[in-house]
Every structure is written in structure tokens, then in C-alpha cells.
């Protein structure tokens, strides 16, 4: 079931001298099956928007439906909502608190009020899913793990709630290249068990590689929703909004500027290499 957002407005500290408008008439539809990217600069309203999705921030004006649930009324079923929308914040490893990994991952399921059997089954499943060995890690302290492992445990803590919609805020921040790759692979795997994945990221390589639709935020407004190729091929628009291109698109675009025949909407390394090789062969620049 989808997410429907209509004319959502939000202001911090309303009616005080510190009042600051964060969202202006945001209207968005996120559909089942979407791997939805949210991009924009720090302070563009991305985080305010996603914290609406599980009612950490409450609707001030406009409407917001998540899986058919209206989030406007003051009283809503928070447990139901928050087990439907799994939220992974930036540096989620900083929320670990329990004595053992197992206990930490069980925190969410326990709060939902599941039975002990159900909890232990979900915990085992979640820990295995994030690529950790359940037997060897379950009784270790989460604080003794490496940074990458801690992040997976934190992710497992959300997965164990079996969310239908998974929201990720900069899931790869601070990781080394291998750690980044592993987390992205993991997220793609989790995607198969959820209806919707929403990801905030500053890394355009990741966004273009993972998402099928991308919402561009700018100063509290949605500038538009695009497919990756459609968005990154628009050099002028990106420059205007001060958004980087994915690396491969950038190279393609620089080549195209010089009259080299490559498509500006290239978003993968394989495509780029093939396109360059093809054109070089046409131009007779190859050794073969």
C-alpha cells in the first residue's frame, strides 16, 4: 500500500520569533514497488518530510496517508504505524543500547508486543538477513563490534519489526568503500521483502544505481520527481539546483560536450565503457 502526501506544510516553532518554515505544499505519491530516492541539500526539508512518515513529526496542515492510514488526527495507532514504517536514521549504530546483540534487535518486536517465540524467530531471521552469523554474534555486546557490524545490527533491529515501508537516511555515511557496497547490496536484498524503500542520500552514484524514482527537494519544496536517467541527463537543471551528477554521467556529459557521441543519460559504469568503446571503434581509435 502506498504513501500519499498532499499539500503538506510544516513550520518549526510556529508562532514564535524562531519560527522556521520547513515544508511548502509538498505533494508526493510513492507507490508500491518503488525504490524512492530523496535528494537535496542539507536543510532542504528531506528529513522533516521523512519524519512525518512515522509520525515523529506530526501533520500541521495538509494530508498524509501511509498504507491507507490517515496521519492527520491527533490520536493514531503509533505501534501499528511504526511497525509498518521502519526508520533507519543516520549513523543508526548510535542507538544501540542493550547488553547483547540479540536483546537489542529484539527491542522493537518486544515493544510491538509480539509473543516470545515470534520475537526470537524474527530476531534470528533479521540477524541472518543482514549477513551476520546468528550463533556467534547473538550474545556479544553490540559495543564490541566493528563499525560496519554495528550498523548491520542496528538495521537488523528495524528489519525484525518486518516493516512494509523502509526509510533510510544516508545509510552508507561514514563507511569505507567495501562497507558501503555491502550495505547497498543488503538494502537491495531487503527491498525484496518490503513494498517500498525510501532512501535519502547525498551520494548520486548510489541514488542512480538503486532508485527507480527520485524526488528533488529544494528549500522545502519538491522540485520534481524524476526517473534517474531523466534527471541526471539534465545538465542545466542540475547546475541550477546545485546537484552533482553521478560520476559516470558526469564523464559521459563531459565527453558529449566535446562532440563525442555518447548518451548523456548513462548511469552505469558498464554502459559508459561500452559506449566509449563503441564510439572509439567507429572513430578508429582502438588498437584492435
Amino acid at each position: 500500500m502506498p504513501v500519499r502526501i498532499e499539500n503538506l506544510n510544516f513550520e518549526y516553532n510556529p508562532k514564535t520569533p524562531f519560527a522556521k518554515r520547513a515544508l511548502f505544499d509538498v505533494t508526493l505519491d510513492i507507490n508500491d514497488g518503488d525504490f524512492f530516492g530523496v535528494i537535496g541539500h542539507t536543510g532542504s526539508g528531506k528529513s522533516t518530510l521523512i519524519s512525518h512518515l512515522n509520525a515523529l513529526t506530526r501533520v500541521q496542515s495538509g494530508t498524509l496517508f501511509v498504507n491507507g492510514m490517515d496521519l492527520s488526527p491527533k490520536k493514531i495507532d503509533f505501534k501499528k504505524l511504526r511497525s509498518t514504517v521502519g526508520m533507519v536514521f543516520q549513523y543508526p549504530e548510535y542507538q544501540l543500547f542493550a547488553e547483547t546483540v540479540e536483546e537489542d534487535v529484539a527491542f522493537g518486536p518486544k515493544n510491538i508486543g509480539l509473543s516470545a517465540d515470534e520475537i526470537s524467530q524474527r530476531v534470528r531471521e533479521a540477524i541472518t538477513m543482514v549477513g551476520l552469523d546468528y550463533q556467534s554474534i547473538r550474545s556479544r555486546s553490540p559495543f564490541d563490534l566493528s563499525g560496519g557490524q554495528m550498523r548491520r545490527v542496528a538495521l537488523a533491529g528495524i528489519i525484525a519489526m518486518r516493516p512494509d515501508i523502509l526509510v533510510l537516511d544516508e545509510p552508507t555515511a561514514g563507511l569505507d568503500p567495501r562497507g558501503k557496497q555491502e550495505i547497498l547490496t543488503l538494502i537491495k536484498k531487503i527491498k525484496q521483502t518490503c513494498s517500498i524503500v525510501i532512501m535519502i542520500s547525498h551520494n548520486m552514484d548510489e541514488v542512480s544505481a538503486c532508485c527507480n524514482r527520485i524526488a528533488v527537494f529544494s528549500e522545502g519544496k519538491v522540485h520534481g520527481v524524476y526517473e534517474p536517467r531523466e534527471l541526471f541527463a539534465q545538465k542545466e537543471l542540475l547546475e541550477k539546483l546545485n546537484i552533482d551528477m553521478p560520476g559516470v554521467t558526469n564523464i559521459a556529459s563531459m565527453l558529449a560536450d566535446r562532440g563525442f557521441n555518447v548518451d548523456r543519460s548513462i548511469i552505469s559504469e558498464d554502459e559508459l565503457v561500452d559506449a566509449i568503446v563503441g564510439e572509439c571503434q567507429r572513430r578508429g581509435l582502438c588498437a584492435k
Partner: protein
Amino acid sequence: MSIIQLQDVYFTYNRASDSEVRAVNGVTLSINEGEFVAIVGHNGSGKSTLAKLMNGLITPDKGKVTVAGLDTANEKNLFDIRRNVGVVFQNPDNQMVATIIEDDVAFGPENIGMPSDQIRERVYESLKSVGMYDYREGTPHRLSGGQKQRVAIAGVLALRPRVMVLDESTSMLDPRGRADVMKVVNDLNKKEKMAVVMITHFMEEAVTADRIIVMNEGRIYMQGGKEIFKRQAELESIGLTVPLASRVANRLREKGVVIDEDVTTYEELVNKICPLE
């Protein structure tokens, strides 16, 4: 002339306990005056431990670290060593001391007992060179990550060290912040001739370095200029990548496209494929 020298250095965290971690395993290297050295490696490769060894925050279990000829193992030398080697750390929130930006930058010069008008001069100069002068009377709390790191760099600059070590200082920043910090660091190295040791896992940040040192399991795995990016498979086997442009160049070469020189940046790659007439 070398400023920092590590001679066959070993270091182990939590020595003689169950959680013993060997971090540095026999490293010999030197950092020369005015040089830009990048130290790359995956998390846990021992690269950050090197930063702490370089200004005496930790001392080697075996081997010797000297800065401008002074042994870091001798506590009496530490003050002079730290005037020579400034360190910018990873988390921008955990290295600010004061609630006002200019006060924070003044912290170092205050500690070395400089007269107050001279401190002010240095603080202003340092803030200007990182482009944060206009913010001097504000609080660090309001700044973005990249701005905070530039203030931290100014704090180090105010001590006028001969070497600046950046210990994963860009890893928590967004692309904009990272680019701003890199620009400041490159300028310092090129214009002020300050030696820079850039510890990072972003290969793109290593491409401008004079020398790249690749760490793995506490040892130097590989070192050299940007020609090392041709050894893509080896680098990938230890959890690193090569810069996108090098990667594409390597693949094009395999497919028979003639790209002879070492390519690390987009411009270089594009120039090779499609030279400007």
C-alpha cells in the same frame, strides 16, 4: 628534508588483555617538508593509529617515532612536537572547545602563551584562509559539518604547524563539505607549502597526493604515485576501490582503447579519449 619519521613502529591497543588489537605492525615511513601524502586503507587497517602516533597521542610499543628530530616517547618533547604536527580529527563536533568560533580557533595559540594581539592576528588570518572569517563571532553549533571542519582546520593552522594530519576528516561530510575541505587543504599545501598527511578511504581524495601509502593489516601494502591505481585488482582485494576515472581507463585499456598514461581525474580521462583540438 623529513619532518616526521617512523622507524619500524609497532602498536597494539589494549595490550595484554583479551581484546588485544594489533593496529600497526612494523611501519617505516617518513613525511617530508611540503609534501602531500595520502594514507589510504579500509576501516581497521591501522591508518588512524598512524595519525595518533605522529603527534605523540600514543607512543609505539616497539620502534621509534620522531618529529623534527624529537622522540615522541619523551614526554618533555610533546609540546614542541604538537606545535609542529597539527591534527584534524574525524568528528567535527568532538574537537571544538569554545562556544564562539574565534575563541575556538584561539585555543591553540593561547596554549602556547602567545600575546593576545598576536593571537587575534593569527586567528583572523587562519579563519580567512579557510573562508570562515565572516562567521567568527557565531557559535559552531549552527554550522554545517563542512564548515565545522574548516573551523577545526583553522584551529590547527593558528599554531602554524609544519605538518597537518587529517584523520578521516571528510568521512562524515556531505559531498559539498568534502569538496570545500579538500580545496582548503590543497591550497594550504600548494600555496603555503604546508606538508599534509591525508588519511582517508576515499580514493578520489588521494589522487592529488605526491605519494600514496596503502595500509592493510597494520602494514604498508603498497606505496607510490598515482601509477598504483593501475593495480586495481590488488586494491580491491583489500577492500579499496580505485578512482572512477582510473577504473574506467583500466577497463577501456582491457577492451583495446589506447590510453597510455595514468589517468585519475575525469578531466584527464576525457582529454585522453577526446583531446581538445
